């Protein structure tokens, strides 16, 4: 069963690129990797998902190496409003509905 591990907290400065890594050593063939963002007093919000290599959208990039045992969420040129908790999720797209959430990384952006 996949277990996800991510750093408890990170901080950075406005304008920097931030990379948050999640390790999932026992990821299965059918598992997808997803990242969510959560602000205080709100539910998590989907950011990006991928299976392998690199995925980019208007908000972030997701890098997944060939062995898929880790993934890195990359936030370009962060601003104060990116201060939030970021969760990785490893989920199987089959009837088993295995959902393995990381404990979250609290990202603090400083001016």
């Amino acid at each position, binding site marked *: 069963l996949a277990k996800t591990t991510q750093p408890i907290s990170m901080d950075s400065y406005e304008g920097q690129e931030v990379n948050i890594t999640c390790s999932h050593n026992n990821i299965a063939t059918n598992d997808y990797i997803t990242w969510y963002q959560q602000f205080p*007093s709100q*539910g998590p919000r989907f950011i990006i998902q991928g299976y392998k290599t690199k995925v980019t959208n208007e908000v972030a990039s997701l890098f997944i190496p060939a062995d898929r045992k880790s993934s890195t969420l990359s936030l370009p040129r962060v601003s104060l409003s990116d201060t939030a908790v970021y969760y990785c999720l490893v989920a199987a797209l089959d009837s088993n509905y295995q959902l393995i959430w990381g404990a979250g990384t609290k990202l603090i952006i400083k001016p």
Partner: protein
Amino acid sequence: DVKVTQSSRYLVKRTGEKVFLECVQDMDHENMFWYRQDPGLGLRLIYFSYDVKMKEKGDIPEGYSVSREKKERFSLILESASTNQTSMYLCASSSLAGVYEQYFGPGTRLTVT
């Protein structure tokens, strides 16, 4: 935009009370989920449902039950609330094939005294 609403933002109940938490989604999603969120523990799945009247246990179902009588509505029931069920409860929904892309409600902060 997908909208997931939860019946209360804050709830205070006494030990032993029966508690109902309601969740409604407006996107005709097949899947619905109930999580609890505690500091340092992230999100833990309590129950999920992939169809009306269908339910599956998640990682921590003890002390909870669920009901899904209509596709848009998923209820979490605490039969006899205890102080260790004080937590943030989050409801989510997704399409059948999009289990990794879940849409969350704002959460209900439940305090059991």
